[in-house]
């Protein structure tokens, strides 16, 4: 083989460095020798072809999104069906009819920010500071396709629900979601909708409400309680037959399909106009019925309207029952001998810097040392979670061992993406060093290169989860086998608890990822390594720049509310059970 060709190939393949003089010589030969160029081109082409045909095929998520790729697992079926329905509604809305749209397709972050300000100011003015209005702002709130880019701006938030079952456009609605103009149906249960101009409407299913603006709505059918205090007094509700229904405090409306409409003034008076007639006033603690184009007095029965007390009571009942179920289930996992670690984030006393491992096999080292992360509300009122905010907020723990099989399962809440990459968990070896005569420490592995069998569990800004196993390191850098999911965390999932689980079997290299209890991807590692680690780190690692590709900053900005590590592979049914037991009440 020609020596020039060999040197050029070695330099091209990053195997050898060449002096400047040698580089110059080779460039000269390349420019002047067509045969040499041809030989080099053929070699590099064959190398790239053999690499490409042997490599796994890439997952082109952006392209798949653009082409509206149907994911291979059923987990997205509901979401896709929902998205398609909403997309269809948008198309119709563009034709003249307004339909309810969720904010996840909001076209501009500024509009969201404006709405947040409006909501918080409104909440403050209403004197409801103690009541939490959850507003979830997708940071990367880009439209998912050009067709969806023309969504309406949000005008309300779904503030609270209890046993709610939805249908139509509202399928899969989550508490805390922002709502745009349009109609949504609740089939069962209760839902509280807070409008940005200050009014609050509590619906009892079956009901259908058409959201028209920040201070107006139309009750198509069902029963609703309207609370209009302070700035919310400008709110206007209408029904078939009644328009300009405006109250000074609280009123109830009931619309029966093909039946009468009733208006009850529960607190303060209410004005309305019946089919274009005069403006009429209903005084407090009285009611009217509108039927057959006539307005009549009706029996005042406020107890038949849903109110906040009932909603809160129901909500508390559900939370109490669900949280007890979860606790029973969690105890089961803690006591299983294969469970290496179970952070329930539940304790009698929450210590500032200690996270207790509730696994029966827990060692002292496996209790986590909290660095920077702060305790915050968990999925249940009586348990907590840890919030990660700053660049080095993390939990360190010792979990030495070698494992051929492993399951990781965690309840996480991503509040926003501040960085491209978010490490949820990584393993690390202890810093080994020797002391020089002058007292200076000399580290054996200053660049923190991972050893074979170390892991990283990463969630990136695109909502893709990666499970990485180090297969080696050296002068060429780190080498990882990576198993990635399709996009699992979407804008509407921001701010909500989700269960992420991953299983890894080093005996056959298989990796399964689960999102909210359902499988989302199955991969096979090309070079499966048994797992081996000393320490684990949750949250934002304090990595030196040398080991961060592109000097990536890792910034998990969210919370972790449970973590289970088992040395066996949990099956699909067990993970589904883990999810159902731990799923928040609303």
């Amino acid at each position, binding site marked *: 083989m020609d020596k020039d060709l060999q040197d050029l190939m070695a330099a091209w393949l990053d195997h050898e460095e060449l002096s400047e003089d040698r580089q110059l010589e080779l460039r000269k030969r390349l420019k002047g020798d067509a045969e040499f160029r041809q030989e080099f*081109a053929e070699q590099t082409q064959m190398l790239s072809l053999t690499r490409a045909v042997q490599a796994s095929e890439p997952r082109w998520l952006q392209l798949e999104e653009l082409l509206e790729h149907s994911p291979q697992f059923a987990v997205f079926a509901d979401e896709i069906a929902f998205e398609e329905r909403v997309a269809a509604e948008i198309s119709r809305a563009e034709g003249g009819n307004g339909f309810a749209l969720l904010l996840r397709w909001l076209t501009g972050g500024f509009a969201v920010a404006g709405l947040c300000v409006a909501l918080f100011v409104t909440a403050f003015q209403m004197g409801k500071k103690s009541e939490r209005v959850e507003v979830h702002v997708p940071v990367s709130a880009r439209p998912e396709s050009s067709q969806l880019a023309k969504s309406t701006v949000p005008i309300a938030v779904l503030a609270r629900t209890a046993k709610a079952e939805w249908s139509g456009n509202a399928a899969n609605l989550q508490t805390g979601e922002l709502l745009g103009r349009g109609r949504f149906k609740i089939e069962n249960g209760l839902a509280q909708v807070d409008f940005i101009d200050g009014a609050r409407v509590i619906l009892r299913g079956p009901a259908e409400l058409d959201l028209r603006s920040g201070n107006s709505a139309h009750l198509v059918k069902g029963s609703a309680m309207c609370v209009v205090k302070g700035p919310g007094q400008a709110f206007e509700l209408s029904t078939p037959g009644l328009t300009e229904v405006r109250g000074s405090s609280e009123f109830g409306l009931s619309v029966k399909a093909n039946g009468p409409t009733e208006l009850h003034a529960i607190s303060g008076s209410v004005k309305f106009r019946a089919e274009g007639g005069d403006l009429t006033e209903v005084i407090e603690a009285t009611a009217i019925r509108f039927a057959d184009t006539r307005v009549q007095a009706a029996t005042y029965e406020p107890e038949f309207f849903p109110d906040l007390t009932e909603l809160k009571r129901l909500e508390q009942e559900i939370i109490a029952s669900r949280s007890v179920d979860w606790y029973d289930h969690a105890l089961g996992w803690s006591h299983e001998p294969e469970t290496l670690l179970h952070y329930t984030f539940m304790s009698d006393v929450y210590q500032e810097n200690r996270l207790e491992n509730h696994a029966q096999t827990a060692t002292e080292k496996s209790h986590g040392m909290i660095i920077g992360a702060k305790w915050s509300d968990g999925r249940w009122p009586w348990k907590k979670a840890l919030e990660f905010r700053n660049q080095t907020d993390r939990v360190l723990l010792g979990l030495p061992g070698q494992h051929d099989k492993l399951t990781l399962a965690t309840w996480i809440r991503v509040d926003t993406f501040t960085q491209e990459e978010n490490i949820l968990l990584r393993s690390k070896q202890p810093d080994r060093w020797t002391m020089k005569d002058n007292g200076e420490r000399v580290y054996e592995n200053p660049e923190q290169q991972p050893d074979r069998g170390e892991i990283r569990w990463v969630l990136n800004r695109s909502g893709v989860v990666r499970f990485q196993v180090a297969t080696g390191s050296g002068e060429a850098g780190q080498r990882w086998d990576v198993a990635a999911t399709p996009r699992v965390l979407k804008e509407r999932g921001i701010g909500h608890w989700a269960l992420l689980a991953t299983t890894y079997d080093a005996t056959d290299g298989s990796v399964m990822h689960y999102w909210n209890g359902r499988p989302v991807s199955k991969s096979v590692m090309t070079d499966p390594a048994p797992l081996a680690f000393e320490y684990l780190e949750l949250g934002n690692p304090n990595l030196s720049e040398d080991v961060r590709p592109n000097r990536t900053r890792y910034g998990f900005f969210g919370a972790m509310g449970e973590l289970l590590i088992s040395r066996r592979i949990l099956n699909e049914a067990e993970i589904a059970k883990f999810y159902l037991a731990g799923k928040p009440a609303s």
Partner: protein
Amino acid sequence: MQLGTTHVRIAKVRRTPLQMHNPSDFDLKSTISSVKSGDRDAFRQIVRHFGLPLRAFLASQLHHLDDADDLAQDVFLAAFNHLDRFRTEEDFGAWLRGIARNKLKTYFRSHSRRQSAMERFRNEVAEVMEVDFEKLAGDLREEQVDRLLSCISRLPDKMRRIVRAGLEGQRAAELCDELEMKVGALYTMNHRANKLLRECMIGESA
């Protein structure tokens, strides 16, 4: 996109419809026409058909296969968005490679500041080789690429191991240890393997 010293290999994933490849029932003109008339899904056939040669074309000019794959996606996104600019009498593969060359230029430009001396050298070589790379890529036929895996499997054992492992970065040194060969002999054997592969690919399609 993986840069710097980190090398990431994506694990084998289950093949999705996007990646399935059945060249026999592909009609480019009608596929393009379908896409233009609003059938986005039809674009998948184009991706299936041209994906591998495009990735290989990009990989021949980029050191990191992951970067090549990212750029390949960018090329397909651009092709989809500007499909109306493609004239059906043109060579679609060449049109894609034209987009790819522009993407490569942008890539090299945006990374030039962070490049080491050797990376700069490789980029200069890539510039010199641009025409030759394009010519070879243009000559490559789909069925030849399809045969490559089978050709690899027929190589003598040592050669096959070299081809399967690749020679990027430190793999050459590792292979030398593993196969108890000197670097020169390793490169010579890889060179010979590449020649055999080319003969196998072309010979079988001839």
